[in-house]
């Protein structure tokens, strides 16, 4: 079995931290963070979980303009996640 991709790992984190129930197989790169029900508080958990999972450090300025799942994935790949 192949290693999970950055996108798959990201989707798992989103699913684990979300309070709303949804069909997670439908979440793709174009899905907006806002549409996942992530508010300004729960995004702190999301960023924390991403840092723990990928072993990187994110600052507020890194993520302030991010709107979609694909944009988070691109940032993680840029920081060396694979």
């Amino acid at each position, binding site marked *: 079995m192949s290693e999970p991709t950055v996108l798959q790992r990201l989707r798992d984190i989103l699913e684990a931290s979300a309070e709303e*129930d949804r069909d997670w197989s439908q979440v793709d790169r174009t899905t907006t963070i806002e549409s996942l029900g992530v508010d300004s508080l729960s995004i702190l958990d999301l960023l*924390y979980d991403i840092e723990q999972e990928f072993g990187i450090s994110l600052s507020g300025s890194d993520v302030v303009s991010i709107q979609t799942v694909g944009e988070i994935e691109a940032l993680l790949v840029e920081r060396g996640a694979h």
Partner: protein
Amino acid sequence: MNHSRRRVAVTGLGIASAIGLDEASVWRRLLAGEGGIAPLTQLDTSDFLVGIGGEADSAGVRERLKELKRRPSDRALDLAVVAADDALREAGLIDGDPPYEAQEVGVVLGTGVGSAQSHFDGFSAFFDRGVRGLRPTTIPRCMYNAISSGLSIQYRLTGPNYMVVSACTSATNAIGVAFRSIRDGYADVVLTGGSDGFFDPFFYGVWNNLGVLSSIEDPAQAIRPFDADRQGTILGEGAGMLVLEAHDRATARGAQIRGEIVGYGETSDAAHRTQPSPDGQALAMEQALADAALAPSELGLISAHGTATQANDSCESESIRRVLGGAAAQVPVIASKSYFGHTLGASGALETIVALLALEAGTAPPNLNLDRPDPECGDLCLVRDEPRSLTSPFAMKNSFGFGGGNGVLVLRAATSS
């Protein structure tokens, strides 16, 4: 604002417990004498003195949450959502054209333990990884008012929103506060009740080591309120929710009235952290009856605190005897913890709902395991293993807590007048 004393109606009920996740299931099992104590499944109890309790059906809770597009969060909040959704829906506050502006609806709940699961997760992460293991939302998940604020946000209820925390008296105190706020004109409708969910290794562990849990191994026999062979209590998780509403407004909008709250009393023993006192308990009962302008002999039912500990049941019997005098031998007494287990801060809500259902049906459900009444309690009119017809529309609900708090409600069946 109308500050004259107003009648307070109950227009919605919801319950999530070891004997069902809806009112109809709970009432059916109460009448059938089917208790909910069983081996615990949420934690490994192999190191525990007692491994049984009253657990709600977890698959059923998940299913109900899924219908509401929610995922499981903290157990106490999850149970509260299941019960609150039923209560608000029955009262007509969710579907269709809501009869109240959102800012008119308050949320006042009780809890003994609060968000136990979130606390356990936080402690575990801290001891595993230190401060770096603590997720940013640990505070809002762990705060006691996570339960009331969670319901306020879920249903966009913008009235008062807070918790009452007084151990096992919590929900009864919360219902009392909600009752007074409507009666005295400060609110028209309040979602009230309580929730506790605490079957994690830490919290359930400290209860195991407190020495008050029953050592009887057979789950069906373990909790025996007022029985001579009682060995202690058994814990249960659960939530009970009631929509209280100004009677005139409920009547004007044609809401179905399930009963009324007509009196409330509250005192503190100011004596010992865990030993109950008949002085404080009796005074709270007298206050509640006076508040309802009711003579003790007019009561048709007593829903006891009835924990099945040696200390509680003897003390509560003495308190009832003092207040009711000769009427103590005539007023039927039920102890619903024999079905749910002791749901701690939620117990006052679950048991108030049982009392309201009993008044509505004119029938008290049987008490479980009351095979040989304790001589210290046996002069009370304890309901045995068969349902019993009620002869009066009034009930008294007792709740007593560690820390010495006593809360007592007086309830009345719905009337056409």
